[in-house]
């Protein structure tokens, strides 16, 4: 076969494979990706039976514990609005009031939103409020 033609065929096959893989990647990203909602968006859109990814910052003074249950409010960074979350499961060490969090929640009715166990992730800034001279 003419080497030029051979090269053209090889290139076409390689590009087709690359295109197919890239399409699969784009499709999977959109299929696996889930929309992040702020507190205000969650209040508007949430309905029982569905789960959502809630993104925002932990409202200062809202964190309480009841046994293994962690109660806190997630604030919309742009609006003065927050939603209550009842969460059980692993709590990342950087979790603290004022920190940015992501948590998968479902509508728990009047009790607030129920966090899916193990879904809480925290963004950790490099600085933190700390220590005085004594304890």
């Amino acid at each position, binding site marked *: 076969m003419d080497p030029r033609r051979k090269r053209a065929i090889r290139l076409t096959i390689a590009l087709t494979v690359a295109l197919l*893989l890239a399409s699969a*990647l*784009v499709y*999977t*990203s*959109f299929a*696996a*990706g*889930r*929309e*992040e909602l702020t507190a205000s968006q969650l209040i508007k859109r949430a309905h029982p039976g569905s789960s959502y*990814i809630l*993104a925002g910052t932990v409202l200062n003074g809202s964190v*309480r*514990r*009841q*046994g*293994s249950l962690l109660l806190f409010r997630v604030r919309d960074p742009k609006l003065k609005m927050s939603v209550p979350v009842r969460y059980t*499961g*692993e*709590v*990342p*060490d*950087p*979790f*603290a*009031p004022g920190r*940015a969090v*992501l948590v998968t929640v479902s509508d728990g009715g009047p009790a607030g939103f129920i966090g899916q166990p193990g879904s809480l*992730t*925290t*963004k*950790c*800034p*490099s*600085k*933190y*409020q*700390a*220590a*005085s*001279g*004594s*304890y």
Partner: protein
Amino acid sequence: MAPVGRLLLILGLVTTLYGLGASLYGARAGGRAWVDSGRRAMYALWGMTAIAFVILDVAFVSSDFSYNVVASGSSTTTPTLYRVAAIWSTQQGSLLLWLLLLSGWSSLALFLTRRRVREITPYAQAVLFGLTAFFGGLMVFFANPFATSSTPPTEGAGLDPLLRHTTMMVHPPMLYSGYTLMMVPFAFAIGALITGRLGADWIQVTRRFALAAWLCLGVGILLGARWSYTELGWGGYWAWDPVENAALMPWLCTTAFIHSIMIQEKRGMLKVWNASLVLASGSLAVIGTFLVRSGILSSIHAFVSDPTLNFSFVALIAVMVIGSIALVTWRREQLRTEARLDSLVSREAVFLFQNLVLVALTAVIFWITFFPLISEAITGTQISVGPPAFRPFVVPLALIVVVLSGVGPIIAWRRVTLAKLRRSFALPVLATTVALIVLLVVPGVIDHKLALIMFCAGTFVVSSVLQEFVRGVRARRAMTSEAPLIALGALVRRNRRRYGGYIVHAGVALALVGVAASTSFQQSRTATMAPGQSVQLDGYTIRYVRPTATATPEKISFGAILAVTSGRQQIATLHTSYGLYPSQDPTRPIGRFFDGSNETSVGLKSGPLQDIWTAINPNVSALQGLINQGDARFTKFLSDAMAMPAAQRTRALSELYSLRDLAIRGLAQRFVTHPWAPTFLFIVSPLVTWLWAGALLAAFGGLLALWPLPPPRRRVTPPSPRDKPGEAVAAPEARARELV
């Protein structure tokens, strides 16, 4: 000393600009003296940056809170060793470290190449000065590490507790070394493209820097994974976090580069590919730095977002990427390959295919990491993607890379006959088949098919590498009749690059077998237990023996001693603890000691076959009532004390603080005297140790490949009768020394 530090940075920037100008003028006008002067400017820059770094680190160690970065990143209660490392926990300090490493590696590279690739060096020098000017400029104009406060606080905010870990002393400098070392081949590639000197020269002079970058990035990634496993309290070592991926992408790209340059050196092929790979690796290193600094993607590692820095980094990345593409396009004719693939069944074809897979892997990780930004730009909504998005692509591609890393060492260059192929593959394939049969008998393995394939691929790689070592030793013994171990030592010593590479292949395969086993066969459970209670997990009984509690000025720590047994056999005693660091909330004189950051110290029993891992969450809410009471009382006492005359106030406050410390110690001790039930996370993971051992083996192999060969031994001729008497005596002595 702060003004001196600031002055050094400004002088450093001026020196950088001079070096940039001198290098470019020397390159254009052909003035070697200007280029040499530029090179010396790099040495001077490194010296100035090193002094500035020492000044800042002394401020950290001596807790000089008049420096803003010291006040925000350290405290008197931060242990001294961590104060030394706290410098790179801050944005400004880490930029200074970047400049120090970049100018240091650049100085080394320019010193080593001062008499080589003379046409390329001036431009490479200019690129390196361009990069140092960028980082120097950031510190001079936007992120001054020597900014001071006229009213310094009496105490600093302290180093983030999560960073108080021995690996954190080394992890950031290793990653930064990897990123900055990568700038050397990047700069020389640019120089080669500008001058059109596109042979293998520039590759030969920068190959070791690429390998060192690969090694440092790899060790940095390993240390980060270890930190995550032992410090973060979730039991994992890799979370596909954007900042983790930021280090992985240039590492993968550099892995491809250090393989494909062998083909250019040997056959003059893949020139355009190599130039593109090294330029991509350099750009990815800066993108990685940008990801850590920008906070544009949610990450547990990122620094606080800074719009000015973000804009500057985006501009630099744009210049690097667009400039690289433009140069490669401009030189495409000269980058044409000198030879073609003889056969698809050859080592160069395997290298090429492995390169394609590594680049595909990098592209996949890049796409998914940046997907939240891409989707926001397209759809206007923020999207979260986690590990499930990575696995369908990364796992099969990683499997292909592992298999190819076993094929590469045993397949010949150019063309292979069927008989040779059979001879090379017989033993590795036999070993893999035996492994497959054994694994099929082990209950449960067949249910995890991808893990099973990885185990077989790992066996194939290790057996093919062993076969190469055995063949090499045999061949050497046939020539020299040396003892097997001596022959092995000599073989490796004389072919460090080749056998170091083989060791890397075996190490990576072992590490990935550890990853496959620990992710596929992990058992975990959470349990809330009182002392004396126990749980069952994977055949082990884990009993909560007793609680522990300590209170120091640095932190309050709640812990537990647990006994692990299997049947009647005692397996391990684990100690896990949870540290609470104080916040600075003035409204809660007692509560603030329980409100700050947390840090987990895991209880770990590591073994060659299995790790037993545990972390405690003490559920401090049990103390909430007492803490609230304490807050109310101490707030009242404090306001009463503040109302007293000055002379009495100091004494009253001192007594009050002593009482407060006593109260906090008492509250902590209640965990022991009136124990409540904390929550534990227990994990039993198989072969995690293989991951660490494999990675260390790979690092050893990398170091071996990097280590310079001894200078070639010169033949010593016998002294001629005309030589002077003294020299005639010295020559035989020198010869004897060489023989020894």
